């Protein structure tokens, strides 16, 4: 009897741990352990395990971090540029793709002919594999044979060197990202919109609120959680961008469109840079972590306040 009760209590206590054990093991093995390795490896120069020029790697403390933040250092130049680009890219995506997704959702939430077709057309880019879509865009942006320039020239405007002009290439990458993401975000907003009770709008209409007022005072506040969620994922997606760059000139010319994760990927090729690669990875993780954590805390507080 006592043994049975004890067993029951044991099972009740241990069961949750047993249930998360497989996931926990995987997370430890593939996330936590590599993260610790990354911290350790970031403290060596040129790279742990490489005897460059016959010399063993040296423990250099935070020197790798100092180098990647130094504008005259070859890696620092690239890192600082990619970091700036990534911020611009992330902010542009959040500030343009998210409102566009919301606008599309509002337009396509209303009953109209061929609504499903329109929704599908807008969502379609999200279904395409990014590397393929970006390759198609590389043709569209091509200088002499591209569609974008054909349109410009037919309007009597000069063609632009979309992927060759250092001032345009980041913009080109941002355009593709917005095209790709807006339809995806629309789905979240559509779901959010359909969760808002019809009666609220009916009541507001009875009280004399027009369409714009309904949007500002009803729709937006009730979509707050969706908006926050979509903004967070769009920001973190931006930090994970690699495919477009692979298809569109590899972040060039002169890194003018290079982004953080792609820069890290590029530098894995030579082991003597792995000290820097690990340092850059930690900075990337730190930024995403701070952002996600900040949002999470805001979100939690918001929930508790209700």
């Amino acid at each position, binding site marked *: 009897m006592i043994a049975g009760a004890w067993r029951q209590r044991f099972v009740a206590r241990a069961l949750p741990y047993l249930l998360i054990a497989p996931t926990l093991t995987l997370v430890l093995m593939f996330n936590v352990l590599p993260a610790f390795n990354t911290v350790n490896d970031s403290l060596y120069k040129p790279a742990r395990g490489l005897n460059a020029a016959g010399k063993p790697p040296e423990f250099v403390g935070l020197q790798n971090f100092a180098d990647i933040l130094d504008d005259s250092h070859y890696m620092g*130049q*690239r890192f600082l540029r990619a970091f700036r680009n990534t911020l611009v890219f992330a902010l542009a995506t959040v500030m343009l793709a998210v409102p566009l997704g919301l606008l599309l959702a509002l337009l396509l939430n209303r009953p109209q002919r061929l609504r499903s077709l329109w929704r599908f057309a807008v969502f379609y880019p999200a279904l395409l594999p990014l590397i393929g879509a970006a390759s198609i865009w590389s043709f569209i942006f091509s200088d002499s044979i591209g569609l974008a320039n054909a349109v410009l020239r037919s309007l009597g405007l000069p063609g632009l*060197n979309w992927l060759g002009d250092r001032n345009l290439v980041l913009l080109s990458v941002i355009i593709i990202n917005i095209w790709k993401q807006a339809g995806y975000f629309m789905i979240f907003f559509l779901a959010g919109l359909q969760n808002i009770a019809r009666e609220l709008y009916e009541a507001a209409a009875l009280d004399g609120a027009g369409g714009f007022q309904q949007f500002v005072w009803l729709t937006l506040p009730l979509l707050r959680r969706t908006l926050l969620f979509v903004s967070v994922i769009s920001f973190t997606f931006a930090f994970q961008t690699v495919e477009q760059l692979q298809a569109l000139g590899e972040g060039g*010319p002169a890194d003018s469109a290079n982004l953080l994760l792609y820069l890290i990927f590029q530098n894995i090729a030579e082991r003597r840079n792995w000290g820097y690669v690990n340092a850059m990875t930690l900075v990337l993780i730190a930024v995403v972590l701070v952002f996600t954590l900040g949002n999470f805390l805001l979100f939690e507080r918001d929930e508790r306040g209700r």
Partner: protein
Amino acid sequence: MIAIRKRMLALFMLLSLFVGAAYAQDDIVIDFYFPSATANDAEGIFQGYADRFAEENPGIRINPVFTGSYTDTRNTILTELQGGGAGPDVAVMLSIDLYSFAEEGYIAPAQAFIDSMENGEAYASDFFPALMSNGVDEDGNIWSIPFQRSTPILYYNADLLAEAGYDSPPANNAELVEIAQALTTSERHGLLVPVAGGFPIWMYQSFAIAFGRNIVDDDPTAVYFNTPEAVAAVEFLRSLGAELGVGPAGGAAWGDTPVAFLAGQAAMIYHTTGNLTRILNGADFEVGVWYLPSGPAGEDGAGYGAPTGGGNLYIFDDGSKSQAELDAIWKWVTFLSSPAIQADWGATTGYIAANASAWEAEPLASLALEHPQYLVARDQLQHAGKEFSSYATITIQGIINGTLESILTGESEDAQAAMDAAQAQIDGILADYR
């Protein structure tokens, strides 16, 4: 349930029996990794070579593994080796990968194998010297064997040149500019040099060599990126788009260039010999091919020049392989670099067959007779120089590419200053090796 399991087990055992039978125990298996940078059916071709080799060499089996692009191949091999895996026995990698793999101790020099051959001297000297330059270290030891090689050449639309009154292609930079300007219209570029898109260094080297000095020599710890010749070369290249307007400012993209040429939107282009077959087959006009024009030094032809490019055969051994395995590996390497295979590979892909006697073998000999353009690519090799390679090749190549792009796109106006800064960074890296 149990019955099904038993049946599955029986099936599995039966299958493994077959597999076991097909893979005889005593066979030496050579893992051969290869990239493909062409649209051809490289997998099919290599399987054909492997079968042919197996017939001639009982007891040795080749396992050809397609590993993507050059970069993918390199990363695959590094990942396998650094993770403690076996890696390939033989692989095709860029000829400029030599020092990074030698530094890690992954590859074995071919020199020892050549020395052990009866006719080693003749074997090695049959390769075009320019194609050997990237496979040899500063002490003259041969590490890798040329396999799929290329150089940039000048393609010109002979019909357009003739219309404008030019019977022959430009021989030097002055003529190049003159003809390019004469053939530039609002619909057409006079000259496209593909330096946009991440990898300007290769085309740039053509100009550096033409201006009188390559940016590398035999010493893998030395780079000459801020010499007067190096600066003049990039300034000339920049002027083509920015001042002369014969091509887009900042240069053309790699993939666009042959497309524009075939569409009649470019009168002349610099591009790889690797595209020769495709361009000859795709053009509805007469395609001319000539040496890259010489630089200012070249009244006597001295300023001709192009870098070489492409992939070599590397032998992987960390010292643990048996003599029998090494012998088998070397047999496969000599098979792939034999005149017969080089002639076949060159004719099907457009790569320059790497040894002189391959050009007398079929099917290449007839092809060259039919299309003399192939011979131009071969003959330019006498003027060709070493492709950029040093210790820390990829890192330094990245610095050079970034600097060239920032000059060509107008971000760095002062070319000399930008190249001095780059040279200082490069010297900082190479100081470890000096």
